[in-house]
């Protein structure tokens, strides 16, 4: 057999692998010699090696054959060849999971573990613990305890590490060995110290006091093992974080003292721990940064890498703390290890001045193709941060990013670049054209559908507003010809936006649309037909409603318009609007908001179908079932629930406000938390502060213990004074109490009237406005027109920041922020907030709010709507 194996070897040449042509079945066949007497240790060793090699290569062994080989192997325990025995231990460990009945070797292993041969004892313990389960562990517990405190380091280490592995499985057993582990921790051997510390920590980690005591002991006694020191530093920094102790704590002092340890490993661990601590001041960072600075010039690549990576981390939060290392980092930018060079450059980009940016970018572009994607993402992130810091440098960055975009790279990397370019475009209007040009070039050869649709969406949004929109058409139409369905659909939507906004392009767009109508994919065809018909109307209002703001193209790519195309779309506008409404989809990011509000003027009396029931649909159905509420029209808006009682009171009441065109319905969900009472005829009496008129009360007939019930009040909104949008109601819960047996729930016959005062209920302007997202706010703004535009200026004295002001306005008006204007860029003193909504009754409302931060916030509000009253209401409510 061996001869044959050699021959094969010879044939396949010098660099051949003696294990290359191993066949599992042949090897298992060979394993039969394990049963021969006397045992030939040499040959058996060779076969065991082959078995382990095969397992290592991922060869699959069936349970039967593995078990057979395993049992044959157990015979080899009779031989006293040392290497053979050691290989047996390895085989046991490797086969523990694939063979059956591995526990039959327990006694052999226990013998070796307690025997005289020290070479066997450690490995035997490790093999034994590998095949032991919780019940068997108790049988060997005595031996394990002895082994942990054994004077032979390898035995003690093996026992400690094996115990650690078993903590997960048998915590309760291993927990009992804590004293032995404690004893082992004071061993002279450095590895035993380390392993004992690890086990002790693992057993005590949920007991903060014990951990703290242990730390105290070991930090004082001084360990010898650098590994143990690293472990102590990690434990200490975790404890510091958990207890939120100040940096004057002895634990911090300990970590800082480790910066002077003689082992680089410990010094680095300590520096890294300090750097990663939250709320570290520049002064506390300084010593850590200076040791890292020293490491930067180490001849060891790993140490330089570790140092510069940690410095990079520091630079994110405290760039000034790292400036001292700039010179050392400069030396690293030509490092032959490109990871180190990249980290050095990105760190310098964060700490350096504007003047060095060009030089560094040039340097990094010389080797960017050599580094791995992870580091490329780091580079892109650094550039992204840089663009915010130095907006004037955007042309350099843009150039660089476009080069990176051309290189090979994975999805994450490309996405980082695209996001970065998009954010540059958004922040620097003058970079828009170059940015779009680069992105156009990118989608020419882009394998990532998500990125392509994202870019097409952006092109559709930004392209038509550029000076020469025609140049983008070619890129977009190329997509229609070449790409997958999702991309084609996105391209069609983008094309439509060009056609809608640029009259001179419209004829060509229509021709292209015509061609898209022949597409093989339903979705693409449907979109093309839909846009074609809308565009042919040549009505600005239609375009704005159904092309710019109609849907969220890249969020909901599978918008299904098929229902539409069969409807004759060339009728009067009203009809078009109506049939469009059928397919309106809820917006991706505001599920409760509906598009039905867009066509409210004509559709208030007809219920649109919506895909999938929303929360509002469910309420609508419930309300429609109550006779008193028929004839109110369709439900306009349902508010979030408002609590009218404290959480832990006798009766829990919360109110949901339903707004209709001329009425409001208040739904009170009541829960009776008293098990000795049955409530009947429950209603909430309301006293309005304004001219609101309570028309009906619909009481809940029965309210048994812990079963929620609802009662309703119908209120008519004041018609003669439409500006009275806010009102306060004082509410009282009225009911008939019947005492009942808490056990049986059987009520008495007689009851008595009682009442319970609830908290006041507020109706605000937000209850009258439904959120609507307008992806293209400017188009919507033009669409509504300036007929009823009004403007007023307010001072918000109590507000200190723009963020706070924006948040307040949004929640007060209950409108949808558009164009991402709810995010205030940092370090800006002024901001414009765009809000869109629909007022009760179906009038579009748009609010443009200019905010300026001085001493307090000054706000200039411009409101447009299709109805003058609505404008007045908004301004009056803000004032």
């Amino acid at each position, binding site marked *: 057999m061996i001869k044959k194996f050699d021959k094969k070897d010879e044939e396949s040449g010098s660099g051949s692998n003696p294990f290359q042509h191993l066949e599992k079945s042949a090897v298992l066949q060979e394993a039969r010699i394990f049963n021969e007497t006397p045992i030939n240790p040499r040959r058996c060793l060779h076969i065991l090696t082959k078995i382990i090699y095969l397992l290592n290569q991922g060869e699959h062994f069936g349970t039967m054959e593995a078990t057979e080989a395993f049992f044959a192997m157990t015979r080899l325990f009779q031989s006293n060849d040392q*290497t053979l025995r050691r290989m047996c231990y390895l085989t046991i460990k490797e086969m523990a999971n694939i063979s059956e009945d591995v526990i039959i070797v327990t006694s052999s292993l226990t013998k070796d573990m307690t025997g005289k041969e020290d070479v066997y004892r450690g490995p035997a313990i490790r093999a034994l613990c*590998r095949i032991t389960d919780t019940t068997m562990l108790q049988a060997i517990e005595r031996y394990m305890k002895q082994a942990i405190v054994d004077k032979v380091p390898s035995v003690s280490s093996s026992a400690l590490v094996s115990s650690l592995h078993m903590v*997960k499985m048998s915590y309760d057993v291993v927990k009992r060995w804590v004293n032995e582990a404690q004893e082992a921790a004071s061993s002279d051997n450095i590895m035993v110290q380390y392993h004992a510390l690890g086990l002790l920590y693992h057993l005590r980690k949920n007991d903060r006091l014990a951990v703290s005591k242990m730390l105290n002991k070991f930090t004082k006694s001084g360990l010898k093992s650098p590994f143990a020191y690293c*472990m102590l530093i990690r434990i200490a*920094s975790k404890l510091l974080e958990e207890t939120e102790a100040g940096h004057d704590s002895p634990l911090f002092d300990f970590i800082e003292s480790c910066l002077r340890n003689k082992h680089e490993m410990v010094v680095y661990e300590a520096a890294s721990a300090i750097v990663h601590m939250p709320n570290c001041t520049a002064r506390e960072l300084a010593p850590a940064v200076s040791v890292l600075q020293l490491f930067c010039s180490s001849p060891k690549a790993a140490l330089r890498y570790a140092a510069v990576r940690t410095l990079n981390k520091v630079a994110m939060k405290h760039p000034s703390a790292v400036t001292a290392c700039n010179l050392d980092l400069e030396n690293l930018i030509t490092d032959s290890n490109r990871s180190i060079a990249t980290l050095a450059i990105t760190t310098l980009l964060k700490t350096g001045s504007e003047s060095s940016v060009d030089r560094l970018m040039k340097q990094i572009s010389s080797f960017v193709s050599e580094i791995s994607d*992870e580091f490329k*993402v780091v580079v892109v992130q650094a550039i992204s941060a840089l663009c915010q810091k130095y907006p004037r440098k955007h042309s350099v960055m843009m150039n660089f990013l476009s080069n990176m975009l051309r290189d090979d790279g994975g999805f994450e990397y490309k996405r980082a670049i695209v996001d970065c370019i998009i954010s540059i475009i958004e922040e620097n209007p003058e970079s828009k054209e170059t940015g779009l040009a680069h992105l156009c070039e990118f989608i020419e050869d882009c394998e990532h559908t998500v990125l392509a649709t994202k870019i097409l969406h952006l092109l559709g949004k930004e392209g038509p507003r550029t000076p020469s929109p025609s140049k983008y058409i070619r890129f977009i139409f190329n997509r229609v010809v070449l790409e997958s369905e999702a991309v084609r659909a996105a391209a069609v939507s983008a094309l439509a936006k060009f056609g809608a906004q640029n009259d001179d392009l419209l004829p060509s767009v229509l021709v292209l649309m015509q061609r898209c109508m022949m597409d093989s994919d339903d979705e693409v065809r449907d979109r093309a037909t839909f846009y074609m018909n809308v565009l042919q109307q040549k009505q600005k209002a239609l375009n704005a409603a159904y092309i710019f703001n109609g849907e969220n193209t890249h969020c909901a790519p599978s918008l299904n318009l098929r229902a539409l195309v069969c409807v004759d779309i060339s009728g009067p506008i009203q009809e078009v609007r109506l049939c469009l409404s059928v397919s309106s989809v809820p917006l991706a990011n505001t599920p409760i908001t509906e598009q039905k509000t867009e066509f409210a003027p004509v559709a208030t009396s007809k219920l649109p179908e919506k895909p999938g029931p929303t929360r509002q649909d469910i309420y609508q159905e419930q309300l429609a079932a109550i006779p008193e509420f028929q004839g109110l029209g369709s439900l306009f808006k349902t508010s979030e629930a408002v609590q009218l009682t404290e959480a832990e009171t006798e009766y829990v009441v919360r109110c949901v406000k339903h707004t209709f065109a001329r009425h409001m319905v208040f739904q009170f969900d009541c829960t009776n938390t008293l098990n000795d009472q049955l409530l009947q005829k429950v209603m909430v009496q309301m006293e309005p502060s304004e001219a609101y008129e309570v028309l009906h009360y619909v009481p809940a007939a029965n309210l048994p213990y812990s079963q929620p019930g609802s009662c309703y009040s119908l209120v008519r909104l004041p018609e003669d004074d439409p500006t009275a949008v806010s009102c306060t109601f004082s509410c009282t819960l009225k009911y008939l109490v019947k005492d009942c047996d808490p056990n049986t729930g059987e009520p008495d016959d007689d009851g008595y009237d009682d009442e319970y005062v609830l908290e006041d209920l507020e109706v605000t302007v937000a209850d009258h406005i439904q959120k609507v997202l307008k992806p293209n706010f400017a188009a919507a703004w033009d669409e509504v027109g300036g007929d009823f535009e009004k403007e007023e200026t307010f001072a918000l004295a109590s507000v200190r920041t723009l963020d706070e002001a924006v948040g307040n306005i949004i929640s007060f008006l209950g409108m949808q922020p558009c164009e991402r204007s709810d995010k205030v860029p940092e370090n800006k003193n002024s901001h414009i907030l765009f809000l869109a909504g629909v007022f009760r009754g179906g009038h579009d409302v748009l609010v443009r709010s200019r905010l300026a931060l001085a001493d307090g916030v000054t706000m200039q509000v411009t409101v447009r709507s299709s109805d003058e009253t609505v404008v007045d209401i908004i301004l009056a409510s803000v004032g």
Partner: protein
Amino acid sequence: MTAQTCPRQHQRTTMEIASLEPSLYTVKAVFILDNDGNRLLSKYYDTELYPSMKEQKNFEKNVFNKTHKADNEIAFVEGMTIVYKCSIDLFFYVVGSAQENELMLMAVLNCLFESLGQILRKNVERRCLLDNMDGVFLVVDEIIDGGVILESDPQQVIQKVNYRADENPLSEQSVAQHITDKLAMTSNIMQSAKEQIKWSILK
């Protein structure tokens, strides 16, 4: 000992550093590849990381492609810190999480390399390694146990393994064959040395 799982979470493809859960489970994987990137030995200690053989081999290929051109000692691939070393036609890798102390991983790598250097009598090349595969398995077993660093001193490892490389791996071999083998080995070494020089020039 692959069934032991390491409690520390690994994060792929991000370089963000979360705080470290103190633990002895330092090594995620260790592997030895030849100069074509083929696996000669590999151990994965964290079963959550690359649970299937296919994922493991893909990872090894990926690591090999990113590291075999330049002996840079350290790399960051698929969200893992990798320290490595090459010798003639062999590549040694030790893998740890992104948050791991790089110097601890280096200590493991150095110990592995020096221990193998000793048992292979400085002939740290593919053929010799394969001829003494049993010794290599034992060395790795003595250095790392289920992801925990068991020993980091090569002298201790050698002593514990107590393994002697055979001059003549198989006694039945004819002298002539032995010589051819040796010659082949030398030419192989020359070849690899040439490769090395070529790369160092190209760098």
